[in-house]
Every structure is written in C-alpha cells, then in structure tokens.
C-alpha cells in the first residue's frame, strides 16, 4: 500500500514537472527571458569587470561571490554534520578499518598509487590555479585533491595517511574557503567598496586588474584547500575505528 | 468625560500599594510572621486610604488619568478614575481591606501564597475599576481571573481542586469569548475602545448584526463572572471550596467585576439609546429574571451554608443586570447601587460563615442548631444581613428593591415587580430557616421533637478573635447605616446618582 502510494506521488510529481518543463521557454532560444535579461551583461562585460577570462569563474566568484561563500559554508557544514554524528578522532595518528582491509593491495597497486598521487595533486593545482582562465577552479581542484588522498588512504591505510595530513593541519584549513572569502570581502570594505568588492585602494590604477586577478586566484586556492581538507576529514571520520564514541542504544 | 481630566499618578500608586504585601513577604523572614501579615493588611489599608483621598476631587467632577503603555495610538493601557470606576474601587478596596484583616487570623497555612495572591488580585481588580478603555479592562480582568485561581484552591482539598478546575474552564472559555468581543468592538468601533458618557459604538460604522454580536459576546464573556444563568456553573462550587475571606471577595468583588464590565458595556460602550434601538436589553432582562428566580430556588435546596450563599449571590448579582436592563433612571440607579449593597451584605455573610466554620467546624445548615448562642455577635450580624437581603427596611437591601421597583414602574413593566417580590419571598424562605435554626433550636432537637435539650449558654465577648469579628461587625453596621443615611457624601447614592443622572437626565 505504502509502495503504491509513494509511487503514485512520485508519478504525479513527475508529470507535474514534465508539464512545467514543457511550458517553459524553449532551451537555447536567444529570445527567452534568461537569455535577454542578466546573461548578456555577464557575457559582454565580465572580462573587463571581473578581470577573469573564464566568465563562469567571474560570475561564481565575483558577481555572485556571496552565494559561493554560502556554498563553501554548506560544504564545511557537511563536515561539521559528519563530525557531529560520528565524532572527531583523537589527536595523533589513527587506525581505520582500511588498515586491515580483507583484500591486501598488491605491490603494483601500491607503487602505482605512490607514483600517481603527486601527479594527480599537480593536476589539481593546475585546475585550481587555472580556474580563472579555463574550466575548473577551487571546487573541482579540491575534489581532485580529496580524491587522490582517498585513493592513498584506501591503499596505504588511515595510519599512514593521517601521518601525512594530521589533524593539526586539517583543523585550521577546513574552513579556509570561508576565511579567505571573509578576508577578501573585508578587504573590499577597506578599499571603500562593499563587502566582497575585489579591490585594493592603495594600489596604482594600473595594478588594479592584476590585483583582482590575484585575489580571485587566492579565493580559488582557499576553496580548493578547504574543499580538499573537508573531504579528507569526512573520510577519516568515516573509516576510523570506533574509539570512545559509539552509537548508544 | 475628557473635559476635566487631569494627569495624576495616584491611580497607579493605588494599584501598586497592595504589592507592599509581596515586598513584605520577600523582605521579612519567616520568624517575623505577625509583622509580615500586618504589613500585608497595611498595603490594603493604604490603598483604600489613598483612594478615599480622591473623593473630594471626584465629587467635584474631576477625573484622574495616567497612561501606562500603548500599543498603537488608539490602543493604550490607561488608568482613569472616573466616578463609576471610583465607586467600584472604593467598595472593593474597602471590602478587600476587611477581608485581609480577617484573613490574618483565618488562614492557617501557606500564608505567603494566600496573601501574595490576595494582594495581586486586589491590584488587578483595582486596575479593572480604573481602566479607561476595554483593552485595559480586559488585561486586568484576565490577570485577575488567573490571580484568583490560587485563592480558590487554597485549601488544596479534592473539592477545592475540582472547583478550581471548573473555575478555570469557565474562565478560559469566557476570556476567549470576551477577547473576541473586544477585538470585534475595536474593529467596528473604528479603533475606539474608550468609554464615552453615552456610549461609543453606533450604527454609523457597523451593521446591526455586528453590534448585536458584539453585545452578546460581551454579555457571555462577562456573564460567566457575573454568574448569569446558564453560565453560573463555577460559582456554587468555587464559593464553598475557597477559604471564607476569599469567598467573601469572590462573591462581593470578583462576581462584581463581571457585573461592572456589563455596566461599562451598557453605559459607556453601547449607550442606552443604542441598546434600546438594538432591542438586546430584552434578552438581558429575561436572563436576569430567570437567574433571579431559579438561583433562589436552587438556594432553597442547599444544605451547605456557603453553597446556599453562593446561589444567593448568583441571584443577587442579577439584580444589577436587571436594573440595567430596565433602561430607566431608577432601575439603573438601583442596579448600580446594588453593586455596593450586595458586596456589603454578602461579604458579611460569608465572613460569618467563616467564623462558624472555624469555631464550630459546621458547614451545613442542618447542623447549626444553637450556633446563635455560641456565637451571638456573629449570628446577630448574620441575621442583620440576611434580613437586609430580603429587603427589610431600614437596610441597603430595601433601598435596592425600592429603586428597582420604581425603575420597573418607570419602564412601565410592572412584571419586574412581581419578579422582585417572588425573589424576596424566596430569599426569606432560604434565609429565615438559618436564623431560626441558629437561635431557636438546640442540639438534640432533631432527635426527638421535645424532651431533654440542653440550651447552650449565651456567651458574649469570647466568641472569636477580634480580627475575625471586627470586620463582620463593621460590615453589618454599614448595611444598616448606609441603608438609613444613604445620601451621605461618599456613600453609594452620592456617587451613582451622578453617573445615572447624566445618562438618564
């Protein structure tokens, strides 16, 4: 009965949504409200106004930087939520269940991972730093760093992994995205603008574009580091052995 | 009303003075019990004294006003002492003062709670009397309602709890209805909640149906406190359950807060012309008549003294309603004056019942044979008040009946006189047996009609603590004195006639 009911509701919702989508303005049409209102300005003037070649980065970090600040807070919040449920590990190195994985990883895998991880991280650095000229940026780069560390942890165990990135490194860096955003935002205030204005008042006029670009890159780096640390911390919290915190009945 | 209105903090001080008791309770340790209790009485006394000092100004036609707070411009908490409010405040402060003194020796446990809530209730109900508009009235009225709950359940017996529960149910429902009435009044009165000399509502702004609704919700809301049948259910339970001083106040003052609200609604909110036009006064009159007769019949069947008195109160308060519903000069005069008259009589009767209960432990009338010899002063006072209740001259009860009768003639509805006569007869029927039993029967009478009965010795002077007897005697004296010299300045007539003469020129 419950099944039928829920199926019915989902079907109804699906029909409703399809109906709405059908009555929405057609996609790709240059005359739709979306294409005529805000977008043109972004497309035409983003580069000169935000000094980033990638319009998307310009929109995300500059025009709608406040939203992005909210997004990185959401990511941080996810970590806090995981820690609230699972608890944070104690200081120092920790052991997790991957240390005694039922399938011992072979030498080939170990060597490959040891060999690959630096390159993956290098690629992620590229993704982060090039966020302002090509697709990519802090979120993607952070995820890639996180992914690489996940692979590393899966193969070498939590003990090894937590030796390389101990809690004292992760704890301050987890919120780096928000912190950097806040600093850049406050900087805009010092420059006489509003919060999140990318500017620096004392710089010479000619330096302004370069500064904006560098600030954008700084924010990207913050997001990348923060995202990576959040992912790693979540992973550590999930795979570490239960210590003092257990689900009580 | 607004012409000779002067700013004054006195109303506020009068309201705050009872809180001395709370300070006393907080400030003095348990050891200084006597001192504390007397301080409580002092607060009440000071309040009454200060209030009395306003008398010359009031007779001069002045009103004193102070604004406490406001929500928006037309919705404010304001205290104004006008003649009607002063009149009500005077009697309630007086009765309260006596009841507080009485309680000092009557209440034997949890003094703190009892005196604190006594003081709070006095403060709130003084606030009711001084309210300058319905908004303020409602606020104080509700606080008074909930503040009096601990007084009712003070004994904490099962009966008291049940009575308190019933009281709360009625009070909450009534408060809700009243709340609606006031919001509707605010809405259709164009945001005017104040009291005008001739009423503030008019058919200009609101439809007939709307005004009728407002009137009946008001009547229902206040009617629960004023114990108009069929809304009287809590009264016969609450009165016997409460300690006697509290029942005296319940009957003498708190029931009157409802009646006073109806007076305000009739005189100052609707105005007599509008009432006549809407025709709602007929319903009010019919309800009042029914209540008067039926309550008296019920009273006949009660054996518990306080319960009988409670039913008597239900009937008597409806005199006030009936007087208002006559829409005639003398009727209104009698009705409003009955507010005080009944407070004096019923206050005294309940306090007497309290003394009987304390000294002999007897609750039921049938057990009271010979009480008159054990407690002569108390029972004499009781008899005086009981006779006054029946309307025997010279007493306040007689004045009420006379004025109401005259009002009935003015309204050219002599049927009311019949109701009054029936009521007087019924009153006699349920009061006289008490007196008879108290004085003319002895213990053992019931066992066999004659034979050996030991007539108790008449003892004067040692029957009870002075703090119990003095208030009773004062009230009983006043019942007679006010009945004879009714037009002395400061007595009800001098104040009420000023109000009524304005409305019925």
């Amino acid at each position, binding site marked *: 009965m419950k099944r039928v009911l829920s199926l019915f509701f989902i079907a109804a919702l699906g029909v409703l949504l399809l109906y709405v989508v059908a*009555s929405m303005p057609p996609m790709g049409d240059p005359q739709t409200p979306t294409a005529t209102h*805000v977008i043109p300005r972004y497309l035409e003037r983003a580069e000169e106004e935000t000094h980033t070649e990638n319009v998307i980065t310009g929109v995300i970090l500059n025009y709608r930087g406040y939203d992005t600040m909210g997004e990185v807070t959401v990511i941080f919040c996810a970590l806090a*939520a995981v820690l*609230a*449920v699972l608890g944070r590990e104690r200081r120092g190195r920790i052991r997790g269940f991957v240390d005694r994985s039922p399938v011992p990883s072979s030498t080939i895998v170990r060597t490959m991972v040891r060999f690959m991880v630096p390159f993956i991280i290098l690629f992620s650095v590229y993704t982060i730093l090039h966020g302002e000229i090509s697709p990519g940026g802090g979120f993607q780069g952070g995820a890639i760093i996180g992914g690489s560390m996940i692979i590393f942890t899966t193969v070498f165990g939590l003990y090894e992994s937590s030796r390389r990135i101990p809690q004292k490194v992760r704890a301050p860096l987890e919120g780096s995205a928000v912190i950097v955003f806040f600093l850049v935002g406050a900087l805009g205030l010092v420059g006489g*603008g509003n919060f999140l204005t990318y500017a620096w008042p004392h710089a010479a006029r000619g330096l302004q574009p370069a500064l904006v670009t560098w600030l954008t890159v700084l924010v990207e780096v913050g997001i990348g580091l923060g995202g990576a640390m959040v992912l790693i911390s979540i992973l550590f919290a999930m795979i570490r052995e239960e210590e003092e915190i257990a689900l009580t009945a | 009303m607004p012409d000779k209105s002067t700013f004054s903090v006195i109303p506020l001080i009068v309201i705050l003075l009872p809180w001395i008791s709370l300070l006393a309770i907080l400030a003095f340790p348990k050891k200084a019990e006597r001192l504390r209790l007397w301080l409580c009485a002092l607060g009440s006394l000071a309040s009454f004294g200060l209030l009395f000092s306003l008398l010359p100004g009031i007779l001069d036609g002045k009103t004193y006003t102070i604004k406490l707070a406001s929500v928006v411009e037309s919705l404010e908490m304001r205290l104004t002492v006008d003649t009607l409010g002063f009149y009500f405040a005077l009697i309630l402060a007086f009765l309260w003062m006596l009841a507080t003194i009485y309680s000092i020796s009557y209440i034997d446990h949890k003094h703190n709670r009892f005196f604190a809530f006594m003081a709070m209730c006095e403060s709130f109900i003084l606030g009711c009397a001084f309210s300058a508009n319905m908004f303020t009235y409602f606020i104080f009225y*509700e606080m008074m309602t909930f503040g009096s709950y601990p007084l009712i359940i003070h004994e904490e017996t099962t009966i008291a709890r049940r009575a308190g529960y019933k009281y709360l149910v009625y009070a909450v429902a009534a*408060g809700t209805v009243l*709340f609606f009435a006031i919001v509707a009044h605010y809405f259709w009165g164009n945001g005017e909640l104040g009291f005008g000399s001739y009423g503030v509502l008019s058919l200009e702004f609101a439809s007939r149906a709307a005004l009728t609704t407002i009137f009946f919700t008001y009547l229902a809301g206040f009617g629960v406190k004023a114990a108009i049948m069929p809304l009287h259910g809590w009264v016969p339970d609450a009165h016997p359950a409460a300690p006697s001083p509290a029942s005296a106040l319940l009957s003498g003052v708190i029931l009157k807060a409802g009646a006073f609200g109806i007076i305000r609604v009739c005189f100052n909110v609707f105005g007599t012309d509008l009432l006549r036009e809407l025709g709602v006064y007929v319903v009010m009159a019919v309800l009042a008549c029914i209540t008067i007769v039926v309550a008296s019949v019920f009273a006949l069947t009660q054996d518990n003294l306080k319960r009988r008195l409670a039913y008597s109160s239900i009937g008597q308060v409806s005199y006030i309603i009936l007087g208002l519903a006559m829409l005639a000069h003398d009727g209104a005069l009698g009705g409003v004056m009955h507010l005080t008259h009944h407070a004096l009589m019923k206050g005294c009767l309940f306090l007497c019942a309290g003394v009987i209960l304390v000294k002999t432990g007897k609750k039921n009338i049938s057990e009271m044979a010979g009480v008159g010899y054990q407690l002569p002063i108390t029972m004499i006072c009781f008899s005086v008040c009981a006779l006054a209740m029946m309307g025997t001259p010279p007493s306040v009860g007689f004045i009420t009946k006379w004025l109401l009768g005259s009002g009935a003639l003015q309204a050219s509805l002599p049927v009311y006189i019949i109701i009054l006569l029936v009521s007087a007869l019924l009153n006699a029927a349920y009061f006289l047996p008490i007196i008879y039993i108290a004085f003319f029967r002895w213990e053992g009478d019931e066992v066999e009609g004659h034979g050996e009965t030991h007539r108790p010795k008449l003892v004067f002077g040692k029957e009870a603590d002075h703090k119990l007897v003095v208030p009773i005697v004062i009230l009983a004296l006043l019942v007679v004195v006010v009945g004879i010299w009714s037009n002395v300045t400061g007595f009800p007539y001098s104040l009420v006639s000023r109000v009524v003469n304005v409305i019925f020129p």
Partner: protein
Amino acid sequence: MGAWRHFPIFMITLPLLGAVLMPFLGYLRERWVPYAALLPLAASTLLGFLLVGRIPAGDHLSYHLGGWEPPFGIEIRVDHVGLFLMLVVCAITLLALVYSRRYIEKEVSPGRRTAYYVLYLLMSGAMLGFTATGDIFNLFVFMEILALSSYALVAITGNRNAVRAAFKYVLMGAPSSIMVLLAVGFLYSVTGTLNMADLASRIAESGYTEVLVVSYILFVIGFGVKAALFPLHMWLPDAHSIAPSPISALLSGLLVEVCAFALVRITFSVFTRSATDLVGGTADAVGVAAAAAVLYGGIMAITQKDLKVMIAYSTVSHIGYIFLGITAFTAEGLTGAMYHMLDHGLAKACLFLCAGNFIYLKGYRRIEELRGAWRQMPWTCFAFALASISVIGIPPTAGFISKWYLILGNIRAGKWLYTIVLLSGSILAAVYCLRIIYYMFFQAGKEEAWEDASRDVPPGMLVPVWALSLGTLFFGVFSYLLIPSLLKASAYLL
C-alpha cells in the same frame, strides 16, 4: 550613509567565520570553545541593535555585495520586518548559547562538542542570512546551511532515537530543499533573474502562468515542510523533542519561524499582490492547512505525556497561528504574524529551556514527574509559568498582543471561521499549559522526587530562561516599541 550599511553583512558572516575557526580552537583548547562561540553572536547582536532606528520607516536597506547592482549581483535587503526578525534571531541564539555550555557538557560526548558549537554558529549565521537576503538563490543556499546544520544538531547526542528522529527530518527536509531549488530554477527560467525586487516586476509581465503557479506551489510545499505546516509537520514532534534542549529551543522558536518568514517574503516581495491573485487558490489551501494545524497541534499537545513532545506539538499549533496571520492578507494579520514570531520565539525557547532544566537536574521528561516541581526548582517553574501564559495569550504578555492582531486581521479579512479557530486554539493552549502549571505548583507529588539537596539549576542556565520569559512580558507591556513600525512595514509589504 555611514558604516552602518555594512552591519547586516557582518551580522551574517561573523557567525559563519566564527564557525569555521572553531575546529582549530577545538583542536588547541576544547574548553574555550563554548566561550569563544559567544563572541561572534554577541558581535552580531550588538551590530543588530546598532542598526535599530537607522533604516527609515517604510523603507529598506539595500546592500549590494561586491558593488554589483541587483539583477547582476546579490542584494541584501533589510526592511523593518527583516531587521526585527534578525534581532529576534540574534537575541534568542545568544541566550540559548549561553544556556548550552552546561547542558551540552552533560548531554553530548566530548568528541562532538566542538561540532556542536560549529553547527550552532552555522545555524545562527544561516538564519540571519536567510532572513536578510534579497535574492532567491541565496535564500536557497542559506536554507541548505540551515537545514544541514539542524539535521546534524538533532542527531548530536548520538543515541538511537536521536539518529532516527534526525533521519526522519532528513527524509522530509531533503525533498523540500529540492522543491525550493526547483521552484527557484523555474522562476529563473521564466524571468531570467534571481533578485526578489526584480522578480516582482518581471513576474507581473511574464506570460508563463503555469510555471509561476507550479513554482509557487513548490515554494509553499518546500518551505511548508521546513516550517512544519500542518500536513507536513510529521518530522517536528520527534526532532524537536529529542534534540538537546537548546537546540529544540532554536528549532522550535526560530527555525520554523524564519522559514515561515521566507514564505512571507516569497509571497509578498516576489509574487506580490497582483500575482498572488494568480496563486490565490494555494493561499487558501495554506489557510485551511493552518487552521487545521492550530486545532490538530493543540489537541495532540493535550494528549501528550512527554513534556518536550507536548511543547513540540504546541509549536505545530502556533505555526498555524502564524500562517493564519499571513493568509489574512491584511496589515494587521501580518503584523500579528510577525509579532507572533517574536512572542512564540521567546516563549517557546523559554519552555524548551525550562524542560531542559528539568532534564538536566533530575532527568525528568514526563509531565507527571513534574508534580510539585515548584519546591525544588522555583525559578524554573516561575519562568515556565510566565512563558506558558504568553503561549496561551493571556495579557499582559506578548502573546496577547500578537493574538489581538491576528484576530483583528482575520476579522478585517472577513474570515470568521479562522477567527473562531484562533480563539479555540488559545483555549486548547490554555488546557495544555495550565495542566502543567497546575502539576508544578499545586500538586504535592512524591516527597522523595524533589527533596534533593541541590537547589535549582546553576545561574548560567537560569539567566537565559528568565531573560526569555521576561522578554515575553516586556514585549507585551511595551508593545508600542514595535507594533507601529511593524504595522507600517506590513502595509508596505502588502
């Protein structure tokens, strides 16, 4: 134009910044975290109070982030109503945080305490941002922070019931978030803008009626779940009663209200009056649901045996009040709804914290166990009584004022049935509140239950409780501080 223009953004970002700094502090000195967490909230509260009186009446403060004018950048838009709610949020979060320290020491295991404060700050900051924003996508972003942090806070004690309640909450909350996101997307697709003020003008001339209606319905359902409007309230009684008491206070006293407020913004600032006619049917449905909520919540509260569950059901009922005020579509009704948010926030937070006091000191959760509580915990009981009086709506508390305006608004709208529902709601409230007061003060109870030598809870837990309960009294007596400007602001919104 002084520095005060920047205050709102700092009110929002300071708690968020504080939150992200907490893990490191927690790593260094875990003991300092409860105190350090107070700083950003205190700063926000201070900034909020400094803003009072700066915004001209009937106008709003518009703050363009990054200096980009609205349709292109994001706007923070604080009008009187918004500022009012932000102050309420600041004050209550601050008080509940003061309360938290001792309570959390007892209820939450050490490894999770830092996370508690982090989430707490995130939640407070998100509520502020949520209230202040003038951009619907931004609204969604903050709603996500709010939702995520509240899910986790419900589960923070880690016992099975808490996790189950949180899971139920997630099951209802996550789809509701998606609905809001879809609604935002739909609106964007037919208007090409995300700014509320811009949307309001573009919706009026937009031809896509079906999309607008569906998007409004999705908004109503989405926020309706978060605000626990009647048929969508199933998560609330569990989540609110099982969460640690300060969190219950926030969830019940603030979260549901800011979500209701979001719907106010969506209805009045985005869809505006003309378009509301278009979606009038939905508004009527909300009215019916709200009326049902008032009665259902009240009746369920009466039947409860657990104190916190009872208070939670009372919240269901009171959310109905707020929605009835909104659906009256009159200035008085809206004022009543807004004032009820204040009153309900203070009173409900106070009730939950009082319930927390009983749990903290005695571990008592059931209502019967409170018989005679007065003897040992007089302060808590008095605060509880005062707050319940406000919940019932007895003068002179704030509850009375808000109910006055709610009923006035509904009378003005000619909605008689809802007027009666509101009145009966307060009767129900009287029944469930007075019962507890009666147990506490007038029943003897077992001697051994309350003869513990330790007296009432420590002052750190009493002060917030009393501040809240006195707040209900204060805003009842001094309602003139707020009501006139709220009336003006409501008229402006309409």
